[in-house]
C-alpha cells in the first residue's frame, strides 16, 4: 500500500466509524451473548464428556501408545508423511517453524490494498489450501487405525508375537508397514537387518529415548521371547 492508498483507507474508515454505533451497548451486547454461548458450550462439554483420568504414569511400562491432544494431530501426521529419517527434523520442527514465519510475515507480504475476499483470489486460494491441508492432516490423525495394530501378513506361529508387539508400544515410534511412528527406524524388515540376538540386546539395553524392555523379560520371559521371535521374523 502506498501513501495515497493508506490515506484513502483511513478516510473511508473514519467515515464508516462515524456512521457506526457506540461500543457500549452495540458491541458489548453481541460480545455478551457470545460469552454466554461460550460458557454454555464449555459447561456442556465438561458435563457430557467429563474429565477422564487414565492409569497412573508408569515409566517402566511400555504398553502405552502416545497420542497427543487433537489439535496437535496435524503436527503428528506430518511425521508420518515425511519418509526418509534424515528429513524427519523437517517434519518435526522445520515445516511448523516455516509456517509460523510465513504467518507472521503475511501482512508484510500481502500488500494488496483490497480487502474484499471476492477480489483477493490468490489470498483466498492460499488460505483455503492451508485450511484444507490442516483439516486433512487432523482427520488423518484422528482416524489413523488404532495405533496398536500391525497390518502385516503374519504366519500363524508368530500371531501371538504380533499381538505382544502391538501391545508393547513399539508403534509409538517405529513403523511396521504402513502404521506406526517415525521417531525410531522402521521395523518392517528388521529381521533382515539384525539377527535375533542383536534385537534382544537392543530391547534390553536400548539407546535413548527408547525405553528398556528388561522388566518385561523379568516378569514374563515367554512374552519377551515371543516379541523377539516375531521381530526377528520380519524380513
Amino acid at each position, binding site marked *: *500500500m502506498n501513501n495515497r492508498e493508506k*490515506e484513502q*483507507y*483511513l478516510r473511508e*474508515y*473514519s*467515515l*464508516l*466509524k*462515524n*456512521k*457506526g*454505533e*457506540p*461500543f*457500549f451497548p*452495540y*458491541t458489548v451486547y453481541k*460480545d455478551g451473548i*457470545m460469552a454466554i*454461548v*461460550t*460458557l454454555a458450550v*464449555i459447561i456442556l462439554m*465438561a*458435563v457430557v*464428556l*467429563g*474429565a477422564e*483420568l*487414565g*492409569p*497412573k*504414569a508408569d515409566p517402566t511400562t511400555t504398553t*502405552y501408545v*502416545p*497420542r*497427543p*491432544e487433537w*489439535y*496437535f494431530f496435524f503436527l503428528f501426521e506430518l511425521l508420518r508423511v515425511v519418509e526418509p529419517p534424515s528429513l*524427519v*527434523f523437517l517434519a*518435526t*520442527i522445520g515445516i511448523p517453524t516455516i509456517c*509460523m514465519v510465513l504467518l*507472521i510475515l*503475511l*501482512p508484510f507480504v*500481502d500488500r494488496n*490494498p483490497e*480487502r*474484499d*475476499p471476492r477480489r483477493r483470489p490468490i*489470498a483466498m486460494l492460499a*488460505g483455503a489450501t492451508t*485450511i484444507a491441508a490442516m483439516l486433512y492432516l487432523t482427520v488423518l490423525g484422528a482416524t489413523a487405525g488404532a495405533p496398536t495394530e500391525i497390518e502385516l501378513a503374519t504366519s500363524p506361529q508368530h500371531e501371538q508375537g504380533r499381538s505382544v508387539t502391538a501391545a508393547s508400544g513399539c508403534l*509409538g515410534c517405529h513403523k511396521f508397514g504402513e502404521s506406526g511412528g517415525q*521417531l525410531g527406524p522402521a521395523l518392517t524388515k528388521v529381521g533382515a537387518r539384525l539377527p535375533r540376538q542383536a534385537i534382544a540386546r537392543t530391547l534390553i539395553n536400548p539407546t535413548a*529415548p527408547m525405553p528398556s524392555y528388561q522388566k518385561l523379560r523379568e516378569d514374563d520371559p515367554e512374552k519377551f521371547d515371543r516379541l523377539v521371535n516375531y521381530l526377528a521374523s520380519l524380513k
Partner: protein
Amino acid sequence: MNFLPRTLQRRSGNGQAADGEVETGGNGQVEIPGALRRGPGRTGNGNGNGNGHSPGDGDGNGKPGTGLIDKKALVEGATEVPISVAGWLDERTGGSSVARAVLYRKVPKHDWSYTLGSAALFAFVAQAVTGVFLAMYYDPSANRAYESVQHLTNDVFLGELVRGMHRWGATVMIVLIFLHMGQTFFYGAYKYPRELNWVIGVVLLVLTLAMGFTGYLLPFDQRSFWATIVGVNINASGPIVGPYLADFLRGGAEFGSATLSRFYAIHMLLIPGLLAALIGAHLYLVIRLGTSSPPWTRAVKKRSYAHEEI
C-alpha cells in the same frame, strides 16, 4: 450521548470532546481519527479540565435547607453515593475519561463474526478462573500429582466439573482462536494499519498451543506421560536449539520429577503471564486503531465516491 452516567457527563467539561472521536471539520471534510493521526493536534483527552470540578458541586442539587429531615433529600443523597464514589476515584485517577473513551467510542457496524476475538478472550478468562481452582488441589510432584488429580476428580465438590471445564475450555479456546484468525484473514483485517495486531495474534496462537502442550502432562496419567515424552523428543530433533529446548523442558537429560514441576511453572506462571500481557497489547491496538469494518461496506455510494476521488 444522553445515556452517559451523570458523573461522566459532568466530568466532560470541555464540550464537544466528549464525543470527539471523529470530528468533522468545518468544510465538510472528514478528518482522520485522533488515534491514527501523527504528531500534535490530538484533542479531547480531558486534560486540564479537572480543576475546580470537585464532584457534586454546583449543578443545581443544592436544595434550600429546611432544617428538618427531608426524606426525599436522603434518598437522593443515597443515590448520589455511587456517583460520588466514582467521582472521588475519578478525581484521583482520571479513570472516567479512559472509561468513556473506551466504552462510548464509535465502532463501525459489523457482523457476528467480530465476536470471535472477544469469545477467545472470554475462554481465556474462564481458563484462568478454573485453573486457579485446580491449582488449589494440585500437587506438582511426580509422586503425588496423579493422586491429587484423582482426589480432585473423585472427592472434591464439583471437582470433576471444574476439571472438565478446564480441559474442554482449552479445546474451545483453540477452536475460537483459529476461527478468529480465519475471520481476520478473510476480512483482510490484518492489512494496514493492523499488521502488528496480526503479528501479536500469531504469537498468541503459539503460546496458546504451548499451554495445551504443557497442561497435557500435568494429570500425569499414562497417556499424558507418554505423549509428552514423544513431544519433548520431537523438540529435541530440531536443529541447533532443539536439544537445548528439550533439556530445558525436561529439567535435565532425563524425564523425571524436575520435568513435572517445570511444566507446572511454565503452564501456570510463565505462559499465562506472557499471554495476559500480549492480550493487553492486542486489545490496546484494537482500541487505538478501531475494529475494522466488513470489507464490503462502503462509506459513500460507489459513484459519488468515485467522483470525489478525482
